[in-house]
Structures are given as structure tokens and as C-alpha cells.
């Protein structure tokens, strides 16, 4: 059996007495599209924060390729191959869409080139290719802050992909996106992930999106895993239908 790409072992953390992670054990394998679903406040985003070094668990470990990454800073984990897109897109709002991407490309290649222009050394070309990949090339010269929500989400995701990660963590990629745009965004995103051969873990509230795009679903409830398996099985589970799907 191969080593999981990411593995969480017995993760625990609480906030003011509320268990946001209560002995979480989870694995994600190379090439998987894993969805995490669960009611608001069940600890899904906390799990992403624990995996990316933003929070440290009170106990338990997170492993990447079998090596512990629990005590590492977000930037160290990012450099090891885990990128993240956020529920609220985290962009450089005062800079253009293209500059946002070029900064991400430069971050991957190394920003310690003090006298070379941001767009030099192929950074502009690579950024433009990434923008074209997700259909943002027409907005390259717009300020990131001027984009509508759906486009901001897409930019946030493509910034994460610019790091050429092995695993990308997506926190509610379709939240705040209109129903019409939702599946367009997901189709674009999944095509980009497949093309880049990136493993993905995404937290999602839209069950249609989960059923259509996830290989495996993990159901979260009160800081622990209630159920997991392929969508076809998980969405037949009575407890899941009663406690999660009905309220998520």
C-alpha cells in the first residue's frame, strides 16, 4: 500500500471548550478529488487550517508523504506542495489580475531577483497561460478588486495553482457564486486540476457539486468524521441525509 499524500492522525483542537477537531483521522491519496461536507461550524475550515499550519493542533499529527508537517509555518508547507484557496478570496486587490498571477509565479520560482522586472524571465508568459487556462485572460489588466465574486474565486484558485502544488485545498470554491456560474466554475476548475495533475481536497456545501465532482466524500459533524466513502454510498446513509444534507 502506498503512503497517502496527506494524512491526519488523531487531530484535536478546541476553541473555548468547543471541539473543532476531535480525534480526526483522514487520508487523501495522490490523484483523488476528496470533498468534505458538514454543517456550518462543524470544523471543516479548521481542518484546512490545521493542514496548512495556520493552526497547531493540541494533539495529533499531519503528514505529507509520510513526513510530519504539523509544526511548520504556512509558507513552509506551501513550499512543500500544499496550496490553498480560501472561502473569501485572498487577493492583492490593489494590483492587476496579471500582477496577482505574476507574483504567485515569482513566489514559486523565487522572488529574490531584486533588479529583474516582475514580468521578465518568462513570468508574464506563464501567468498569461494560467489566466487563459481558466478564462481570465480577458481581465488580465483589471484590478483584482474590481472583479465580480465568481471571477475572484477563480483568480484565488488559479493563484494557488500557480504554485504547481501536489495538493490544493479549496474552501467552498462555489460559495458566493451564482447558480448559473457555479457549474461553469467547477468545470473550468476540474479541467485545470486534471490537466495539472493536482490532487484536490474541497470543502463544499453544494451537494450537487459534491456528487458530480468528488471521488470520495468525508462527512464532518461536531469536529469528527461521521461517514466517508464514494458519493453514491454516502448520500444513501440515513444519518448523513438527516444530520448533514438536510442542514448543510
Amino acid at each position, binding site marked *: 500500500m502506498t503512503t497517502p499524500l496527506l494524512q491526519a492522525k488523531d487531530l484535536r483542537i478546541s476553541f473555548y471548550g468547543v471541539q473543532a477537531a476531535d480525534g480526526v483521522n483522514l487520508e487523501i491519496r495522490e490523484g483523488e478529488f476528496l470533498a468534505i461536507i458538514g454543517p456550518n461550524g462543524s470544523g471543516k475550515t479548521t481542518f484546512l487550517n490545521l493542514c*496548512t499550519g495556520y493552526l497547531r493542533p493540541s494533539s495529533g499529527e499531519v503528514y505529507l508523504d509520510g513526513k510530519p508537517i504539523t509544526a511548520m*509555518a*504556512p*509558507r*513552509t508547507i*506551501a*513550499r512543500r506542495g500544499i*496550496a*490553498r484557496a480560501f472561502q473569501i478570496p*485572498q*487577493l*492583492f*486587490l*490593489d*494590483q492587476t489580475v496579471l*500582477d496577482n498571477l*505574476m*507574483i*504567485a509565479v*515569482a*513566489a*514559486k520560482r523565487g*522572488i*529574490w*531577483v*531584486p*533588479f*529583474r*522586472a*516582475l514580468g521578465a524571465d518568462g*513570468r508574464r508568459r506563464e501567468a498569461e497561460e494560467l489566466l487563459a487556462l481558466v478564462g481570465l485572460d480577458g481581465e488580465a489588466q483589471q484590478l483584482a478588486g474590481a472583479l465580480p465574486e465568481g471571477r475572484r474565486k477563480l483568480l484565488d484558485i488559479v*493563484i*494557488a495553482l500557480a*504554485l504547481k502544488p501536489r495538493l490544493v485545498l479549496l474552501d467552498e470554491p462555489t460559495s458566493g457564486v451564482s447558480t448559473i456560474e457555479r457549474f461553469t466554475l467547477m468545470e473550468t476548475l476540474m479541467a485545470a486540476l486534471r490537466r495539472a495533475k493536482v490532487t484536490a481536497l474541497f470543502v463544499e456545501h453544494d451537494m450537487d457539486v459534491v456528487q458530480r465532482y468528488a471521488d470520495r466524500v468525508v462527512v464532518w459533524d461536531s469536529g469528527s468524521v461521521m461517514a466517508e466513502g464514494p458519493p453514491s454510498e454516502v448520500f444513501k446513509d440515513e444519518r448523513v441525509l438527516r444530520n448533514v444534507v438536510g442542514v448543510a
Partner: protein
Amino acid sequence: MRAALFLIALAALALAPIAAPWLQFVLTLALAKGFAALGVAVLLRGGLISIGHAMFYAVSAYAIAFLARAGLNEFVVLLLLGTLASALAGLLIGAFLVRYRAIFFAMLNLAMSMVLYALLSKLYGITGGTDGLRLAVPRFFGLALDKASFDTALYYAGLVLMLGVGYGVQRYLASPLGHALAAVHTNELRLEYLGVPVRFVLLIAYTISAALAGVGGAIAAMAISHILPEFAFWTASGHLVLVAVLGGIGGVAGPFIGSLFLEVLHTLAVGVTDAWNLIIGVALIGVIFFLPSGLYGLIRRRSGEPA
């Protein structure tokens, strides 16, 4: 249009001391403060305001005085070593300060500068206390010049430095490192998640800004020939922030424009009335209200560019 304006401004600066010799000293000081204000502007790009940057201006000036006393009395050597002293001080102090943001960063800079001011004022045996230190006229590329000739040479060297250093800073700000600095201001979290060590980005910016203040301090020390603890006083730091905001932080030219405007306005206002602070205050209110991008922003708008 922009290039033409630039060349006209440069020619005016080169010819001004010939047309009005009394302007030379004023303009030399304006250049010196312009370098230091450019240092402040670099930090403002990253969203950090330093109300203590005059300390690096003073570090360079005092370093030069000490070196000159030790027998190193050559303009280029003094300029380089004075700047290096400020850069090293910036590296050391910055290593501690880049952990802080907003008002804490501003106040800690202020505190550091006032500690330096107190030391310079009290350590009479080393610094000359409030009497300060005199600086002999340095040699200029090996030439022993009288004070008037040296001052002229210093002014034109300052102009050349403004072009060279300004170009270097512009390249830095346009580089990935410079863009990362601006990104710290807008979204530090995203930068961390891109794998960029934010504190290191800020430390580099802080060291560069201290070095720029050092260039200014070196020029001022050699122009005035008398170094005082007031170089590090908090009002001097406030003046640098004022100059940076007045000129505008949208480009390298902004702090120099702000400094030249303020020094000339100050000199003219002093000649007209005792209430020169009132004239300067009104001018500043006008700029802040009507030119949020500073004087440089106005020039850019006039030449058809976005401010």
C-alpha cells in the same frame, strides 16, 4: 511628455545654482532629505510608516564624522561607509521591528530614534553632546577643494546620485521583491500562503530604506559640516514622512519633488514672514486635500498617466 518633463526638471536643477547661487545649499539639503524621504516612501509601499527614520540619517552623519576623525576624509569613501553604517543599523533594528505592524511599528521606530537622540546628546565624550561634531571639508576624488568648490561638487554629485540611486530603487520596486512588498500591504496572509517569508521581504525593504536615509545623512553632513543630535530628533523623522506624502509615493521621483518643493517653499516663506509655518501648513493642507497622490501624482495626471 514624461521624458520631456523629466529632462526639463533635470536641466532646471542643474542650472539653478548658476542662476541663483544662494539656492545651491537649499537644493543640496533638499536632495539629502529627498533620499531619506525615499526610504520612508519605500516602507510606505509596504504599508509601514516609520516616524523614526531620521535615526538612520543621523547614523550615517555621525559615522562620517567619526571616520573623518580617524583620517578617512575622502568623499566617496565617506559616502559609501556612511551609507553602509545606516544599512547595517537598519538590518539590526529591522530584524526586531519587522515583527510589528501599524501603530506599533511606527511607535517603535520613534522610540528607537529617541533613544539614539538621547545617546547622541548625552555621550559628550564620544559624540560632542549637544555641541555636535565638526566635519572638515573632505577631498573630492582625491582633490583638495575649498569649501565653496566642494559644496558645488557635492551638489552635482547629489544630482548624479539621485539619478543612479533612483533608477536602482525603481528597478527594485518593479521587481518581484518590490511587488511582494506592496503585496504585504494588501494581503499578507496570501503572501505567506504563496510560500513567501513576509518578514524577510520587509527586512530587505527596511534595510534599503535605512541605506537611503544614510545616503541623505551623508550628503547633509558634508554640506552642513556640523553634525548635531537634532539629525535624529523625532521632528526630523516627521518631516521625512511629510515630504514623502507631499511628493507622493507612487514613484521614485515623488519624495524628491516633495523635498525640493518644501525646502524652497520654506526658504521663500522665511524671507517673507516670521509665520512661515503658517504658509507651509496651508500649502500642505492644500496638497493633502486636493492631491491625494501628492505632487508627483499631479504631474503624472497632467502628462496623461494614471496618478
